[in-house]
């Protein structure tokens, strides 16, 4: 069983290690390239970063001592890795707890005499082992990257300490998701519910960085808070042994809770079973007309997912817009940044801030949304659903085009809900976002998201099993390009390789027509290529 569990984790291990290696190396290189080599230049860099870093406090800890490479790595790398490893832990736990059941593996194991305790413990330990390897390799790569790029050494002890903290957090998120998954009935539901819970506790901690009132809540519910307490690489920072140990203990307790929940529930069911609405027996096909209309049938099937994405993003957009005035206060100390926001906001810095922060976040969320859709396309192929569709008089080209059209509708739904929430949030803060510019900014999100989907469609048509991993890598690299490119003063054409840079800042800066044409070309070209590739491949292979 351990061997099989190990195999199931293998792809995750390779992917995470690859991400970690890349991210660590790039950040080390970025520091040495941008911070300069003199003490004065590094001090200036540190001050700039500390000001700019406040913008990212929703995702990264507040920066301290980033004039040193160790401090920079602590903030920029080990501050971001919890997101990455947390997402991996979440998806892995959803797969281990509900994916295995969906595939009948749990039944097989239980029938073979494997106890539930052994099953859960083995799955957890296997994940722990892969996490140890991935984190160790990532830290080693960061260490080597710093030596190679900056010519200096990171202190070994603090590297080990921060790696231990990261491991503790990763295991806690994994164990927490396993607990949450006991309340779901499918892998998708487990991932969604787990994502919601982990997202909430992540953002509670993130917001507590700037809102002291949230600290007591973060202290109670958020493992990310305890991870943040350890910043051993920062100058003057320390490794919080108690916090890290507490996370390890929490993960063990959560595994114990998972075990208990699993013993009290039926295999294939959730702990709490809601009696499904009594549905009359029937021998007739559903009269629902939507199911018979090509594109709308696909949209209808994912209606709950669309609503969940729309409400989740909408809530976030509302919140950010509603606190835009307070957030601007955070930047009062940086008059340059305030002037900059006023300029790009055509006199309204609040609008600029909303566009700058919210749309920056939403682009990332929308790219993840596109990846989830591509994952469905891949699953359709791998699990035989595409085969069933193609057993009807439907061409492969139509399949690709329907997927694209359905995604446009879904994406438009999510964007519409979110933009409405943004407008309402802004109104509640007495900030007026011009409906025209918001509409333009919202409409431009569709070619942005569809660009990722088009790349994913090509991958799903050619190599469905690898599509998600490759697209996620591209998205991640794309995001890094946008973040690092300006820092490293990369040429404009290199920045344009990132789809993120093509969106521009339409809320305040109008339409970036070049970007729009490129995104449109990627979208159309991608889906045409996907349709072509789909013709020439074997389904299910």
């Amino acid at each position, binding site marked *: 069983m351990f061997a099989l569990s190990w195999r199931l984790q293998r792809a995750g291990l390779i992917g995470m290690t690859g991400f970690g290696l890349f991210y660590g190396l790039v950040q080390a290189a970025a520091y040495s390239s941008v911070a300069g080599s003199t003490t004065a230049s590094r001090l200036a860099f540190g001050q700039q970063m500390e000001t700019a870093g406040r913008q990212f406090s929703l995702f990264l800890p507040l920066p301290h001592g980033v004039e040193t490479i160790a401090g920079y790595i602590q903030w920029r790398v080990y501050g971001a890795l919890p997101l990455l490893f947390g997402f991996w832990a979440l998806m892995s736990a959803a797969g281990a707890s509900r994916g295995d059941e969906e595939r009948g593996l749990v039944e097989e194991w239980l029938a073979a005499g494997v106890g539930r305790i052994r099953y859960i413990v083995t799955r957890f330990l296997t994940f722990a082992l892969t996490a140890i390897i991935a984190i160790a390799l990532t830290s080693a790569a960061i260490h080597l990257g710093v030596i190679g790029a900056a010519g200096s050494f990171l202190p070994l002890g603090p590297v080990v300490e921060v790696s231990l903290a990261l491991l503790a957090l990763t295991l806690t998120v994994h164990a927490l998701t396993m607990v949450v998954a006991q309340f779901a009935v*499918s892998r998708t539901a487990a991932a969604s519910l787990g994502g919601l819970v982990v997202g909430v506790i992540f953002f509670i901690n993130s917001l507590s960085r700037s809102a002291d009132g949230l600290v007591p809540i973060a202290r109670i519910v958020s493992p990310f808070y305890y991870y943040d307490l350890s910043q051993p690489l920062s100058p003057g920072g320390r490794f919080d042994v108690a916090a890290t140990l507490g996370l390890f203990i929490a993960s063990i307790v959560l595994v114990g809770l998972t075990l208990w929940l699993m013993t009290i529930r039926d295999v294939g069911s959730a702990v709490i079973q809601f009696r499904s609405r009594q*549905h009359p*027996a*029937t021998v*007739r*096909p*559903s009269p629902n007309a939507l199911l018979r209309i090509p594109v709308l049938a696909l949209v209808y099937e994912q209606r709950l997912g669309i609503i969940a994405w729309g409400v989740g993003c909408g809530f976030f957009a509302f919140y950010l817009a509603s606190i835009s005035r307070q957030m601007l206060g955070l930047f009062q100390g940086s008059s340059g940044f305030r002037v900059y926001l006023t300029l790009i906001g055509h006199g309204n810095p609040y609008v600029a801030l909303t566009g700058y922060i919210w749309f920056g976040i939403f682009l990332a969320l929308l790219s993840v949304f596109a990846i989830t859709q591509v994952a469905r396309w891949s699953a359709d192929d791998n699990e035989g659903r595409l085969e069933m569709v193609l057993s009807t*008089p439907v061409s492969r080209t139509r399949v690709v085009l329907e997927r694209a059209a359905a995604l446009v509708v879904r994406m438009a739904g999510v964007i519409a809900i979110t933009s409405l929430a943004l407008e309402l949030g802004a109104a509640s803060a007495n900030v007026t976002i011009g409906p025209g510019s918001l509409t333009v900014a919202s409409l431009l999100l569709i070619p942005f998201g569809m660009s990722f989907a088009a790349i994913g469609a090509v991958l799903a048509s050619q190599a469905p099993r690898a599509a998600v991993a490759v697209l996620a890598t591209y998205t991640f690299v794309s995001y890094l390009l946008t973040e690092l490119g300006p820092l490293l003063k990369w040429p404009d054409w290199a920045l344009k390789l990132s789809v993120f840079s093509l969106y521009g800042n339409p809320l305040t800066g109008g339409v970036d027509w070049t970007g729009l044409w490129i995104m449109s070309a990627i979208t159309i070209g991608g889906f045409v290529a996907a349709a072509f590739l789909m013709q020439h491949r074997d389904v299910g292979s």
Partner: protein
Amino acid sequence: MTAAIHTRGLSKDYGRSRGLFDLDLEVDEGEVLGYLGPNGAGKTTTIRLLMGLIHPTAGSAAVFGLDCFRQAVEIKRHVGYVPGELPQFGGLRGSEIVAYLAGLRGGVDEKLVAQICERFSLDLGQRFREYSRGNKQKLAIVLGFMHRPRLLILDEPTGGLDPLNQQAFYDLCRETRDAGATVFLSSHILSEVEHISDHVGIIRDGRLVKTAKLAELHEIRFRQVEIQFAGPVPESAIRTAAGVDQVQVRDHTVRCVVRGTFEPLMKALCDSEVVNFASHEPSLEEVFLTFYRGDGQLTASDLGSAPRSP
């Protein structure tokens, strides 16, 4: 008349001698072909090629004269497909799945859907994830038959069905055949094929080793015979009798295999007092195993079991 299925040198090479090789097959309209083979023999590969889901490495395949890949969409209008296992449809209800695929297909007779569901006691109101394996297979049958296809391609369709529902399925197949449809039934269950097939094709290691009418297949069957004598065994007469093989003598008992008619053996026995004579006709399974294990020739291991008394 155009053949319902026609393949010439159809091959799909997955490497390491896996796949399907040089398949020449012709199934006439209105015929029921039982396509027999063990797991991994190439049955599903054949079906996937006929459905245009995978590309052949060599050769060609046509359904109703239409190329299986280039004219796949047109072919699907006339084909009903029942896979061995349905894919995940998650939270959709059976009725929604039928509606969705009926929407893609068009021309579905809702009354027929209702009839088939009633016949198999299938409630379309349930969610797919709540269905048992058998109910999922019933749903697959509904989806395959709901548009009155001219050709049914069935890939091990009775997996998970209880005997009563299996019988209902055979009845449905027979009725469909009687209505003029062609059936391509892939199976490794020989009794299933015996129930409804006119012809049988046996596939082994990716190669079609035999096609015959079901009756012909019975003719090449051998019989296992056990004879008990009151006195000495006329061993030399038995061994020299035409069609008699694998003779084993123990005390007053002889075991042997007889092909063709019994007449030479009976002549060999005419001067001896026989106290018991038992003849066992091997099942189609044993015939099938003969083709599967060897090259069509009987082997001692195939014939080693003792015949049963009538």
